[in-house]
């Protein structure tokens, strides 16, 4: 499979969609940066840098997403990654650090720890917590902290990951529930694949870049290992992960599958998952994912925006939420999966 070609097709289709700025913009720009890096494509790198410029430069007034104000509107993970790799000018560091400071001090927290938002069933109370947050904040804080020498950002990134993992990870299924205290004062019962993917995105990046001497490093590595093991166990025979990962009656879902493959591929590349079963899972998964990507780069079977749908985020609720052709969540995950496939091909691990 020509993964570079697939990735470029996805990127091209994404651009044609002309989505307004939203957190998935950040996800996709990060994917495009990774593409530029693995393909050594200076032209693409410049293109993404140009697209990101108004974000870190404060020219984007608002970006849709709960962490829009202190994170996404500054370019979030994409800006932080570019900063870490010296693709942004010095002045960007100041602005991104200021955003991180605001995030740490102003973002609402539950019991002064985990980031949260008002409970849906009682908006007067803070306490709705959800796994999507770790995608939003952890890599952003980690990479900025590494570049700017801010240990408090790095500590916060690891701490937020631990808080969410302790709260939302099911140690039996080894998968994440999406939320707690959303529609009801309990966990959402389903195991939404993109939610698991958000968790894994953060875990993969933390495991790769958190200094090994950091006190939370061991915890992060174990959480990463456990979640990947849960995914290996819940992959369908065609290589896909489903909308609610415990229920193959729900549809095969591409954004969750893409994010899981990104995390799995990155872990294989970094030497964390050495057993053959992980590589086989990756191979089967990337093959399955290509079955949902059109020749023009369109992406099928991507769940639309989704947070505790329906009654309380049950498997049925997630199924009924449905999928959308070329949804704005659809492009970043398979681009990232392709970048890891290319990395593995370069190393001769993947044919």
């Amino acid at each position, binding site marked *: 499979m020509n993964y570079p070609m697939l990735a470029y097709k996805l990127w091209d289709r994404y651009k044609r969609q002309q989505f307004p700025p939203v957190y998935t913009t950040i996800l996709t720009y990060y994917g495009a940066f990774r593409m530029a890096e693995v*393909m050594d*494509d200076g032209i693409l790198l410049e293109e993404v840098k140009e697209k990101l410029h108004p974000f870190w430069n404060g020219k984007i007034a608002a970006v849709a997403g709960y962490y829009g104000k202190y994170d996404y509107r500054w370019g979030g993970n994409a800006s932080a990654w570019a900063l870490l790799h010296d693709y942004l000018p010095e002045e960007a560091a100041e602005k991104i650090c200021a955003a991180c400071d605001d995030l740490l001090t102003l973002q609402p927290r539950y019991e002064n720890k985990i980031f949260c938002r008002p409970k849906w069933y009682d908006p007067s109370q803070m306490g709705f917590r959800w796994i999507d947050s770790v995608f939003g904040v952890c890599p952003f804080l980690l990479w900025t902290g590494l570049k700017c020498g801010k240990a408090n950002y790095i500590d916060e990134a690891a701490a937020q990951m631990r808080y969410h993992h302790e709260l939302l990870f099911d140690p039996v299924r080894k998968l994440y529930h999406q939320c707690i205290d959303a529609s009801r004062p309990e966990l959402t019962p389903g195991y939404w694949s993109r939610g698991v993917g958000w968790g894994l995105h953060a875990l993969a990046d933390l495991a790769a870049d958190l200094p090994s001497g950091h006190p939370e490093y061991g915890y992060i590595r174990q959480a990463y290992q456990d979640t990947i093991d849960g995914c290996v166990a819940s992959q369908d025979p065609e290589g896909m992960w489903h909308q609610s990962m415990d229920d193959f009656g729900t549809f095969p879902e591409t954004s969750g599958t893409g994010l899981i493959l990104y995390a799995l591929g990155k872990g294989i590349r970094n030497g964390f998952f050495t057993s053959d079963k992980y590589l086989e899972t990756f191979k089967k998964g990337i093959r399955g994912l290509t*079955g*949902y990507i059109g020749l*023009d780069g*369109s992406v099928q079977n991507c769940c639309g925006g989704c947070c505790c749908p329906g009654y309380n985020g049950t498997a049925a609720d997630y199924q009924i939420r449905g999928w959308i052709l070329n949804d704005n969540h659809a492009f970043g995950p398979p681009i990232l999966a392709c970048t890891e496939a290319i990395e593995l091909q370069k190393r001769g691990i993947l044919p």
Partner: protein
Amino acid sequence: MNSKVKKIMKDTTGYLDQCVSICGKIGMGRTNVYRQAGPMLEFSTVRLTKVGMIGDHETHWQTLRDEQLSRIRTVPEELRGETTDLQWAIHPGAAWLAARGIGDYSKSVAEAAEKLIADGHRNADGLFDDPVYPGHLSTEIMAMTIPALAFAGKCSGNGAFFDEAVRQYEGYAAVLYDPAAKLWHPGYLPGKATGEMWRYWDKSILTQGLYLKKTGVFQGCWSRGEGYALFALSELVFELPDSHPKKAELLQVREQMLEGLLQYQDTNGMWHQVLNDWGSYPETSGTAWILYAMGRLIKRGRTAVSRFLAPYQKGLAGMGRYLAWDGSLFNVSTGCICPGGRGTAADYALLGWRKDEPAGCAPVLLALQQAAQIEFATGLIPSYQEVLKQFPGDEVL
């Protein structure tokens, strides 16, 4: 785009590459797609091998042909039924092979054609109909009889086969073609069902309860139904000898039909489940049938084809959105006869699609192999990747 990336993008997925992916996907399937899709898939695949062998000399084409020849030889008897019965009176793959002088099918094909003409179930006007529900006409029956008769005429030189094929086409057109809309209706029912005519694929509660509520022509213009009629006509005009008195007229009819369809093509190049209602979903099998027929016209180049070239390429590009890299197919309507018991536009719109619906394989393979032929033989269109680039489509209709 740097030079390295340009090189990667030149390593293209072409029309035939995608056909190979689709065949690979069919072969990997846990269900017997050939059995579900019927002889039309075998026809499209065996025809593909001929096109493939022109394009390159890779051994996989011969392997695929051997596999198909073996399959066609052992096709179950029930697929060569004595009447139409919505089963195949003549295997189109065998008939096509006979017409092209491949294999040894000419004698049996001519015999089967004679038997169809003598014993095939017909309505009062002499049109082949549905023996299970006499009087039921369907463009699918056209696709199952007319091309095979034309192939039989070609391989045997028996003009009676051509004449019967033309008679069937004209008779069907008189009932099902709407000259004002320039569209085909997919079927006709002469009266309410007695309750004994449902088939294995009609056993849903919805269909059993409502089947055949209406007498007359189904009002919805189903894209795959249109495709069946176009397929019948395309093969007929291709095989008819130039000396046949109807040849020139039918060529003109085909051109007018295809021209009439241009107004129903959406901005992304697709035709929809209900051709004249874009509220219904873009449908891949109907689009592919239309593109195949359009491609046949373009390749022969008998008339000025320039007005079809842009819509044709736009259609190929639009269809690419629903063809996945591993050969999976999206947006192919599930099979039906008169959905909802009335076959209105809304009934067809409600009839959903499913991934890898077997009925989509044959038309997509035919459309893509035809495009490959045009690329090789005429140079009128570029590679599939180039077509996709030139016609990227809009995002929202």
